[in-house]
């Protein structure tokens, strides 16, 4: 009796925190997404409608008929593609980096981990502005490439999905490096020796032993990059420009200029459901195949 009282007492802070900061806002958002939009922003609390979800796929033409509108699907599609490419590039860059780090002497490893986390110390906004200076026409990269005669006119990279991808890759690289590094660092070196011993060359030892055993890190890193990448706001906003809008900017717009809170909330929920579906599909696959 006393023990259970004490247990609930000790659990209370975290339960309250999760309730107040996670469940409550999510519930509120879900509720808002089912309401009628107010005339000047906000919502009409007493009027329920599914308009917000209908608006995601359809629009009303002049005769008030519902016609399919794929504009928002396009934005979702672009976001998924950009996030997927970002995940792929960070994976390609991060894996060799993490592998190299994991095989350094222990003291240097600590230093390298520290260096990887250094970008966290600077504001993400500032770092994205820095990329504007680098990527814009007549910016550092454009100027150097022009001087070297490698580009004819300008590079015209800024305000394209490419610029967004570059910014996201840069921002999220540590989130890919660290989980992979952790799984490689604790990997038993004797397993690699055993692979060599049994006739595996470097490539086979990598593909048959190192890679499978670092999969938890790879998957963790991919989730940490793909999910925030999908809803990223700052990089697409600053580097992507108006023609390559992503979900994050779209949602922000609904709560800002468009004054359509229910639609913004509905978009957030569609995104949330997409992410949850992807994660549970992954979890289901992992359950079938017991972890090493």
């Amino acid at each position: 009796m006393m023990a259970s009282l004490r247990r609930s007492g000790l659990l209370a802070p975290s339960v309250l925190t999760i309730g107040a900061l996670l469940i409550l806002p999510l519930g509120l958002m879900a509720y808002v997404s089912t309401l009628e939009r107010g005339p000047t922003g906000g919502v009409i609390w007493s009027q329920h409608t599914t308009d917000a979800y209908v608006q995601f796929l359809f629009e009303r033409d002049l005769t008030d008929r519902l016609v399919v509108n794929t504009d928002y699907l396009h934005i979702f599609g672009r976001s998924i593609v950009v996030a997927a490419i970002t995940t792929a590039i960070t994976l390609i860059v991060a894996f060799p980096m993490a592998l190299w780090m994991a095989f350094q002497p222990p003291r240097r490893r600590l230093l390298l981990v520290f260096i990887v986390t250094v970008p966290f110390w600077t504001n993400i906004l500032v770092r994205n502005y820095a990329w504007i200076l680098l990527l814009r026409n007549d910016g550092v990269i454009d100027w150097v490439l022009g001087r070297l005669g490698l580009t004819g006119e300008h590079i015209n990279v800024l305000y394209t999905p490419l610029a967004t991808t570059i910014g996201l890759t840069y921002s999220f690289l540590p989130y890919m490096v660290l989980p992979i590094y952790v799984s490689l660092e604790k990997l038993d070196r004797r397993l690699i020796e055993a692979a060599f011993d049994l006739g595996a060359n470097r490539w086979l030892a990598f593909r048959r032993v190192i890679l499978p055993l670092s999969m938890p890190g790879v998957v963790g890193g991919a989730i940490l990059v793909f999910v925030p990448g999908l809803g990223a706001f700052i990089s697409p906003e600053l580097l992507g420009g108006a023609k390559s809008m992503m979900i994050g900017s779209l949602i922000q717009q609904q709560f800002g200029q468009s004054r359509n809170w229910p639609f913004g909330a509905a978009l957030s929920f569609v995104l949330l459901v997409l992410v949850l579906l992807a994660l549970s599909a992954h979890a289901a696959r992992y359950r079938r195949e017991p972890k090493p």
Partner: protein
Amino acid sequence: MSASGTNPASSNVTRLAVARPDAAPAARAETATVAVDCQSITKTFGAGAVRALDGVSLAIRSNEFFTLLGPSGCGKTTLLRLIAGFEIQDAGTILLDGRPLDGLPPYRRPVNTVFQSYAVFPHLNVAENVAFGLEMKRRPRAEIDARVKEMLGLVKLEGLESRKPAQLSGGQQQRVALARALANKPRVLLLDEPLSALDLKLRTEMQLELKRLQHEVGITFVFVTHDQHEALTMSDRIAVMRAGHILQVGTPEEIYEHPSARFVADFIGETNLLDATRIGTARFRLASGVELETAEPGPPHSNVTLVIRPERALLAPIGGSALPARVEQVVYIGSDTIYLVVLEGGLRFRIREQNRDGPRSRARAGDAVGIVLPPAAIRVLAQ
């Protein structure tokens, strides 16, 4: 003799031992072909700060169970890793069947290793683990499946093909590691203290199992251990190592009965070591003034160490040629009883008697007794 490759300090003693008529097995086996030939191997670590191996030469014969025995840090594991190719020697050459291994990466050497920690792949099941080496060699699927089945039968793991290592006991993982290494039909199987993580009963079982396996597959085994009992039980020949040197190479019997150095005598089994000075061809005097006769003259040094195994000394009634002593402690260990006695002059001595007639102690602590040291039981070593 060249096959027993010892360092110069102990070679003359070994030669003596081999020349004895009862050392015939070694002389006969010398005609066998050499599988692994290590020629003056030197290996240092930490930019030369630690000398793990110092000019070691060693010839391991085909199809023998060879053990590298020594305390931790003696260089035995380093030598094994050099043969496997995980480390590269600073100087010297290793030949396998007469061909140098120098410069070959581990995956091009026809040797396989059983690791101390087993190093069974945790993401693969038992059958996949055993098949790994054959898949690396791109053998046809049918051949791999047959070989996996054969290997699992050999190590008695049938029926566990689809288990993951996490679902296996330590002993079973050990068997998987063994089957995995043997599946490749290596020329030499290297075993790096593979039994040290097992409990005593399982270890004893695996010792006999390994010996059986070696006979069955007919592959040269190079076994590393710090456990002298294990070495004596399993080996055809043993190399005793210390501080980067090989002190003695020989059959278990040679090593036990004719140790070439004080360290070997002390490291292998229980031993009484008595410092003595020479007073005749085969007569020596202990510090206490007691004189002892030996069967062998020993090396031509005036200061020697006399080595007497506890089971070769006899407890006797006082008087006659028996040395007077006083029993300090009696330790009953089941099969045997150990008497710790003090000789004249305060010298401690250990006698071991088999309890052939049941657990009846022949003396108790404090008793005055005599001990008999038969001349043939005494080995003479240079000090």
